[in-house]
C-alpha cells in the first residue's frame, strides 16, 4: 500500500529512541539519574506505537492486482529509483516488537544494573542510539537505508562494547567488533553496486521484481547474494567473522543482552529473510548460507564447552543459535529461522540478564569456577537460568523446543540431511555445555573464597574477562552480598513468559498463528513441502530430544552428581589444566586472522611508514629542494653586480641575434 501523506506512528516508532538519545546526550551531565527513566520512556513510546500500528503492518491490500501487505512510507526521493522510505510489514513488525519490547526490558533492567556507574546517562544515550540504529535497519524499505542502519548499529556497538573505555581490553574488543562489522558493510555495499547496476534502483521491491523477471544472470545473482551474506556473516558472527562476538562481552552485561540476544546479531537473519526472493533465486547462495550456518552452529557449541567465563559461555551459545537461524533461512525455512530468532530473543535475554544478576551479586565475578552453590543464595537466578537453559536446549514445551525443532526438521524436509545431522549434534552439545554451566554455577559448595590457583586459573588477576575488572565502579562497594532490587528482577520475570510460551505460536503447522503472520511476506515459500522427509516430525523431535537428554546426562555425570560436586575443586582444576590447546585458542581463528590480515597490514603500514614515505615521498620533496638550490647557485653566478658585465651580456646577446638572423636570411 503506497501510503498517502505522513504515517505518523511509524515515525514515532522510528525516531522516539533517537530523540531519547539526543536528549540524554545533550543534557546528560545535568540529568544525572534521570537519564535512565528518559531512556526507558523513549523505548516504551516506541513499543506502544508498535503495538498501536500492529494492524497496519498485517493489513493486506491489492494494488493493481498484486496483493500487498503492510504499509509503505516514502521519505525522500533524490533520483529515479533512489527513494528512501520506511516499510511496515509483518517481518519488520516481528523485529520491531523484539527490538523495542525486549529492548525496553533490558533498558529497565539497566537502571538497576548500571546505577552508580559514572557513565550512567551516557550508557542510556548509547542504548537508545543503538535501538534507533537497529530500527533504521529493519524499517528501511531499500538497501541504502539498510546499509545506513547497518553501519549505525556497528557504530553503536562500538560505543557500547567500549563503554568502560578505561579498560584496554574493552577498547580492543570494541575496535575488533567495529572493524569486523565494517568488513560486512563493504560486502553489502558491493551487493548494492550489483543490484543498482542490474535494476537501477535501490528499493527492495524493484530488486525482487528484477529477480523474478530474470534480469540477473545466475552468476551475478549468486555474487550479489554472497556479498549480502558477507554482511550477514560479519553482523551475525558467522564463521569466519565470528571472533568479535565473544570479545564483545567486555561491555556491561545489559549490553550483551541487547546486542547479542535481541538485536544486533540477528540483523543477518533479518537481511536474508528480507531478501528471500534473491536467495530463493540462487540455490548456490542458499547452499553457502546453510553450510556456513551449520558450521557456525557446531563450532559455537564446541567452543562453548571450553569456556569458563559465564558471559562467554552465553556468547558462544548465541553464536551457535544464530548459526541455527542462518541455517534455517539458508535452507529456505524462513518462518522457522525467524521463529528461532523470536524465541531466542526471549530466552537469551533471560540468560544474559540472569547472568547479570549473578555477576552483580558476586561483585563482578564472571568465572564460573569461582561460583558454585549459588542455588541457595540466589534462588530466583537459579530458577530463571534453569528455565531459560531448558528452553535453549529445546526441551518441550518451552519456546526453544518449537523453534529449534522447526529449524532442524526443515533442513531435512528441504533435502539437507547433512545439516540435519549438524543440527541434532549441536543440540546435544548445547545441552551439555549449558548444563555444565548450571551445575558448576549453582550446585555444590560456594568456591568464591578458594585460592584461584587451586582451581587451575592461571592468571587470577585476569579471572573472568580477560581484563580484570578493576575499572568497574561497583568494586568499591563495601557490603558483601547485595540482593538485586526489583528493578532488575522484574524484567527477568517478564521474560519468563516468552521463554516458556513464545513457541506456542508455531503450533498447528500451516495454520499456526506464526505461519499466518508471515505468510503474506514469504508466500508459498514457507509452506511445508509434501512428504519428502524420511522421518516424520514427531520422530525427528524424539531424536533431537534423545540427543539433548544424552547431553544433559553427560553434563550431570561430569559435573552434577554427588561425587563430582564433592571433588569439584580438583576436578575443575584438572579440566582447566588439561583443556586442549585447540579449544583454548578457539580453533586458532584469531591467530589465522592475525597472520593473514593483521600482520600483512602491519607490514604494509611499516613499508609505507618507514620506507615508502621517508624515501619516496619525502625523498622526492627533498630532491626538489636540492635541485632548486643547485639551480639557484648556477644562476646567481651571473648576478655579478657589475653593470658592465650586464651590458656586455646584452651586447653579446644582441650580436648573437644578429648573426642568427643573418644566417637565416642568407639561407
Amino acid at each position, binding site marked *: 500500500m503506497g501510503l498517502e501523506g505522513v504515517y505518523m506512528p511509524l515515525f514515532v516508532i522510528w525516531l522516539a529512541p533517537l530523540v531519547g538519545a539526543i536528549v540524554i546526550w545533550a543534557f546528560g551531565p545535568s540529568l544525572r539519574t534521570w537519564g535512565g527513566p528518559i531512556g526507558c520512556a523513549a523505548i516504551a513510546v516506541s513499543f506502544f506505537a508498535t503495538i498501536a500500528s500492529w494492524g497496519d503492518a498485517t493489513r493486506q491490500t491489492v494494488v493493481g492486482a498484486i496483493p500487498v501487505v503492510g504499509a509503505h512510507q516514502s521519505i525522500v526521493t533524490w533520483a529515479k529509483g533512489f527513494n528512501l522510505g520506511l516499510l511496515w510489514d509483518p517481518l519488520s513488525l516481528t523485529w520491531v516488537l523484539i527490538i523495542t519490547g525486549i529492548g525496553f526490558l533490558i533498558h529497565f533492567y539497566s537502571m538497576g544494573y548500571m546505577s552508580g556507574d559514572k557513565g550512567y546517562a551516557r550508557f542510556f544515550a548509547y542504548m537508545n542510539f543503538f535501538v534507533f540504529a537497529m530500527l533504521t535497519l529493519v524499517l528501511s524499505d531499500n538497501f541504502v537505508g539498510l546499509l545506513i542502519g547497518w553501519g549505525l548499529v556497528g557504530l553503536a556497538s562500538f560505543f557500547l562494547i567500549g563503554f568502560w573505555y578505561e579498560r584496554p581490553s574493552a577498547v580492543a574488543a570494541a575496535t575488533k567488533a567495529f572493524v569486523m562489522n565494517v568488513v560486512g558493510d563493504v560486502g553489502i555495499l558491493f551487493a548494492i553496486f550489483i543490484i543498482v547496476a542490474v535494476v537501477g534502483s535501490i528499493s527492495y521491491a524493484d530488486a525482487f521484481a528484477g529477480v523474478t523477471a530474470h534480469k540477473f544472470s545466475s552468476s551475478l545473482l549468486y555474487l550479489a547474494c554472497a556479498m549480502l551474506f558477507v554482511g550477514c556473516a560479519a553482523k551475525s558472527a558467522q564463521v569466519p567473522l565470528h571472533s568479535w562476538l565473544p570479545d564483545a562481552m567486555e561491555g556491561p552485561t545489559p549490553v550483551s543482552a541487547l546486542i547479542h540476544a535481541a538485536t544486533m546479531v540477528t540483523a543477518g537473519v533479518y537481511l536474508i529473510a528480507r531478501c528471500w526472493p534473491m536467495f530463493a533465486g540462487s540455490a548456490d547462495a542458499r547452499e553457502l548460507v546453510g553450510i556456513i550456518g551449520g558450521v557456525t552452529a557446531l563450532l559455537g557449541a564446541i567452543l562453548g564447552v571450553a569456556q569458563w567465563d559465564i558471559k562467554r559461555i552465553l556468547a558462544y551459545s548465541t553464536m551457535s543459535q544464530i548459526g541455527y537461524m542462518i541455517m534455517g533461512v539458508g535452507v529456505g525455512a524462513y518462518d522457522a529461522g525467524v521463529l528461532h530468532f523470536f524465541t531466542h530473543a526471549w530466552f537469551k535475554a533471560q540468560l544474559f540478564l540472569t547472568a547479570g544478576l549473578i555477576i552483580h551479586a558476586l561483585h563482578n565475578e564472571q568465572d564460573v569456577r569461582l561460583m558454585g552453590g549459588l542455588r541457595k543464595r540466589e534462588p530466583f537466578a537459579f530458577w530463571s537460568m534453569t528455565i531459560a537453559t531448558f528452553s535453549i536446549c529445546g526441551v518441550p514445551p518451552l519456546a526453544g523446543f518449537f523453534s529449534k525443532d522447526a529449524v532442524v526438521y526443515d533442513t531435512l524436509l528441504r533435502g539437507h540431511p547433512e545439516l540435519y545431522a549438524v543440527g541434532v549434534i549441536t543440540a546435544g552439545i548445547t545441552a551439555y555445555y549449558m548444563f555444565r554451566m548450571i551445575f558448576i554455577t549453582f550446585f555444590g559448595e560456594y568456591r568464591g573464597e578458594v585460592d584461584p590457583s587451586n582451581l587451575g586459573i592461571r592468571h587470577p588477576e585476569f579471572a573472568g574477562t580477560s581484563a580484570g575488572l578493576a575499572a568497574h565502579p561497583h568494586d568499591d562497594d563495601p557490603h558483601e552480598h547485595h540482593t538485586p532490587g526489583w528493578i532488575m528482577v522484574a524484567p527477568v520475570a517478564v521474560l519468563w513468559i516468552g521463554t516458556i510460551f513464545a513457541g506456542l505460536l508455531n503450533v498447528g503447522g500451516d495454520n499456526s498463528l506464526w505461519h499466518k503472520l508471515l505468510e503474506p511476506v514469504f508466500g508459498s515459500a514457507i509452506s511445508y513441502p509434501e512428504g519428502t522427509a524420511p522421518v516424520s516430525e514427531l520422530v525427528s523431535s524424539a531424536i533431537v530430544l534423545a540427543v539433548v537428554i544424552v547431553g544433559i546426562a553427560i553434563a550431570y555425570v561430569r559435573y552434577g552428581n554427588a561425587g563430582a560436586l564433592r571433588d569439584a575443586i580438583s576436578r575443575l582444576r584438572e579440566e582447566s589444566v588439561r583443556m586442549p590447546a585447540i579449544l583454548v585458542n578457539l580453533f586458532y581463528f584469531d591467530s589465522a586472522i592475525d597472520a593473514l590480515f593483521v600482520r600483512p597490514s602491519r607490514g604494509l603500514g611499516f613499508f609505507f611508514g618507514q620506507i615508502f614515505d621517508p624515501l619516496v615521498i619525502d625523498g622526492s620533496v627533498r630532491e626538489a629542494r636540492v635541485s632548486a638550490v643547485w639551480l639557484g647557485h648556477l644562476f646567481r*653566478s651571473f*648576478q655579478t*653586480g*657589475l*653593470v*658592465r658585465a650586464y*651590458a*656586455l651580456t646584452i*651586447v653579446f646577446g644582441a650580436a648573437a641575434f644578429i648573426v642568427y638572423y643573418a644566417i637565416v636570411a642568407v639561407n
Partner: protein
Amino acid sequence: MDVAIANYIGLSAVIFMIGVGGVVARRNPLVMLMGIELMWNAANLAFIAYAKAYMSNAGHVFAFLVITVAAAEAAIGLAIVVIVFRRAVNVDVDDVSVLKG
C-alpha cells in the same frame, strides 16, 4: 644631393659601437650615460635614414619616441648618479654592487 643609405647606416653603426665601448669600458657613471646617449642617437640616425630611403613616416615617429624615452632615461639615470654620489665620494660603478647574487 643623394647620399647612399649605406653611409648613414655605417655611420650609425660606428656611433653605436662607440657608445657600447663607453658603457662597457668606462667606470664613471656620467661617461656611461653619455655612451648610452650615443647609442640612442645612433639608433635615431638609422631610423631617419631608413625613413628617407623607404619614404615612410614610421621612422620619423619612432625617432621622436626614442628622443622622448631617451630624455626620460637621462632624467632617471642622472637621478641615480646623484644618489650614488651622495653615498660615496669616489664614484666607481663597480663599487655599486649591492644586488650581486
